[in-house]
């Protein structure tokens, strides 16, 4: 409505009747009694669905036909031994006071502290550390204070630690119980004191440890948690390693099979296996460890074996070197994966790969040497020789074999006095190209 006024729009027809309607509607909305308009609007502006509890109902009193009076009456408690009579208010219903014991008497629990006679003491309970008087005192205090040893220790005439008192008490109780059980029929072994004897040293250490933990500084706490986390991690990694080892090692110790081969197998395999896990440094070690792991398998495919050997042989080489080896293989016209992987073919293939690796290493070495050579000479290095000499003309068949003659001529002999034409080394060693030969 206001918006329309602002906009200057004409009001719709029957504005009068509308206003009346709105007014009546508003009237009905202003209806609530008891709560203000705003609050009424807050709860939805409509009467609540549930009838509210009438405040009048809240303080209803029970419709009693009984007559209740309160009387000041004396009482006794079974918990007391002295028959002291005290007074208190009692709710009397129809003139009848309540029966029964004092309602709090049932809470008067106490511990059954063992009571020994002097004979029993002589027979079972003598101890070097404890005199009879002390023991008697101890037991009296135990009885008095319901085995609250902290209090007992405090009250004890001579200074004894809580653990010592406890030990003495429990030892005595145990001995008495056992002795009495031996005398009269009865099984005491289920009694808690007999079943679980008190351990003095254990308790002492436990309490000491507890107090240490309690008094730890925050710094110490942090350190401890770090160490624990580290230990957990190490344990888990060890478990994982052990599991991996176990899953790789097939169970050769089959009971049905003869034990003898198994025995001769296990020492050699156990010694070789750890080497298989750790990266071996020499190629010989790699070879033998791969062989050992293959032998563990009991059956495998030749291609799988070849892959393993190749991996072992190139474990020291980077990814780029491996790619260069593969490229060289392709240039030489050899399949990366032999098409007919017989034993000899695989062996030759492996040897070829190793030789290519050697070749690449030598080439790198040569380049370094040549670079050194140029640094020895003080003359400024010449521009690299015409790259045309070394450009690569890809030929799938010949590995530069037929061009050997030509290349030798064009290539600068290494013995010449001028700096060889490769001092400006590109950061990456050049790929092995057919025309390099």
């Amino acid at each position: 409505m206001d918006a329309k006024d602002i906009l200057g729009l004409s009001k719709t027809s029957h504005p009068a009747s509308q206003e009346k309607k709105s007014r009546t509607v508003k009237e009905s909305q202003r209806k609530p009694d008891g709560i203000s308009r705003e609050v009424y609007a807050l709860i939805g502006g409509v009467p609540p669905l549930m009838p509210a509890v009438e405040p009048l109902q809240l303080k209803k009193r029970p419709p009693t036909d009984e007559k209740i009076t309160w009387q000041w009456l004396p009482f006794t408690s079974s918990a007391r031994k002295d028959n002291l009579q005290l007074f208190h208010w009692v709710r009397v219903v129809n003139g009848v006071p309540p029966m029964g014991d004092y309602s709090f008497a049932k809470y008067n629990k106490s511990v059954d502290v063992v009571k020994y006679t002097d004979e029993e003491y002589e027979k079972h309970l003598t101890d070097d550390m404890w005199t009879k008087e002390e023991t008697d005192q101890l037991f009296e205090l135990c009885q008095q204070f319901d085995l609250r040893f902290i209090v007992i220790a405090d009250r004890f005439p001579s200074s004894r630690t809580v653990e010592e008192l406890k030990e003495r008490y429990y030892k005595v109780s145990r001995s008495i119980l056992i002795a009495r059980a031996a005398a009269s029929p009865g099984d005491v072994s289920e009694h808690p004191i007999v079943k679980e004897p008190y351990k003095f040293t254990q308790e002492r250490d436990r309490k000491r440890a507890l107090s240490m933990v309690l008094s730890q500084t925050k710094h110490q706490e942090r350190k401890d948690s770090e160490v624990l986390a580290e230990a957990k991690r190490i344990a888990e990694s060890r478990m994982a390693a052990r599991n991996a080892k176990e899953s790789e090692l097939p169970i050769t110790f089959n009971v049905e099979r003869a034990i003898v081969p198994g025995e001769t197998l296990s020492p050699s395999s156990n010694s070789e296996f750890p080497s298989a896990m750790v990266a071996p440094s020499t190629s010989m070690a790699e070879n033998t460890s791969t062989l050992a792991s293959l032998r563990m398998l009991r059956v495998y495919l030749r291609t799988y074996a070849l892959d393993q050997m190749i991996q072992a042989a190139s474990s020291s080489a980077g990814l780029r070197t491996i790619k260069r080896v593969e490229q060289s293989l392709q240039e030489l016209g050899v399949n990366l994966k032999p098409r007919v992987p017989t034993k000899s073919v695989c062996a030759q293939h492996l040897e070829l790969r190793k030789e290519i690796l050697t070749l690449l290493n030598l080439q790198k070495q040569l380049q370094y040497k040549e670079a050194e050579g140029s640094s020895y000479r003080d003359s400024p290095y010449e521009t690299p020789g015409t790259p045309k000499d070394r450009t690569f003309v890809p030929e799938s068949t010949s590995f530069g074999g037929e061009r050997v003659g030509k290349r030798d001529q064009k290539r600068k002999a290494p013995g010449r006095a001028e700096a060889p034409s490769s001092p400006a080394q590109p950061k990456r060693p050049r790929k092995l190209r057919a025309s390099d030969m």
Partner: protein
Amino acid sequence: MNNSSSSTMHGPDQPEISGPAPAPKSLRTKMGKPEDSEKKIFHKKLKDVEISVPIVYGNIAFWLGKKANEYQSHKWTVYVRGATNEDLGVVIKRAVFQLHSSFNNPTRVVESPPFELSECGWGEFEIAITLFFHSDVCDKPLNLFHHLKLYPADESGPMSTKKPVVVESYDEIVFPEPSEAFLARVQNQPAVVVPRLPAGVALPPPVPVEDPSNRKRGDTKDHPLCQWFTNFSEADELLRLATARQQVQTHIAKFRREITLIEGQHQQVNSVSDQ
């Protein structure tokens, strides 16, 4: 295999020399103990001998031509056969082919040679082949994987119902430590390559095999599809490898010469500059 020189390799006959240190042979092959029970001998394993079984596995697929419909356009056979078409049943007990899950009963078990499976379909997928061996051979199965190929590599050519698409792979199953029983049994079997036994090793005579004519033929020499089988020969690869190695060795020698030359030069320069 220990030494990297190639002179030790003579072909599949060479028994594999194993282990890092040459352990005394008496420890390895506990032979000739007459007091041992026969059973025990048969379960012993020989360590210097490896048995290999050359196999070829793959598929042959025929286009069905007119009879093809949307869901069955090709009839294909996936198989594992001996490389020389000999009977693999002496070694393999059964083969399990795991097909694509859209096939009915995708796990197909073949209990006797020839180990093959034929089906009709339209799709290419990877088939997992699990080979189970006889109990005296090996108690662990071996897995192979073959990608089923139905459509020819070059899509230009028309598909013919007469000429199938053939994809085969050669491989060898190697048993590095065969039991003596196994060795004895397959000594004279053509499907298995048994190396020359090292000196001093004597095998008990092979257990007499049942009359071969009674059993169903398990070899694939006269297989209906044998005309499409590829003949895998190692000669060509060996030749190429030998040539390649020769070349690489020459270059290695050359590099080595050059390096020593340069080192000689450096030394000269050094001695000159010291003065």
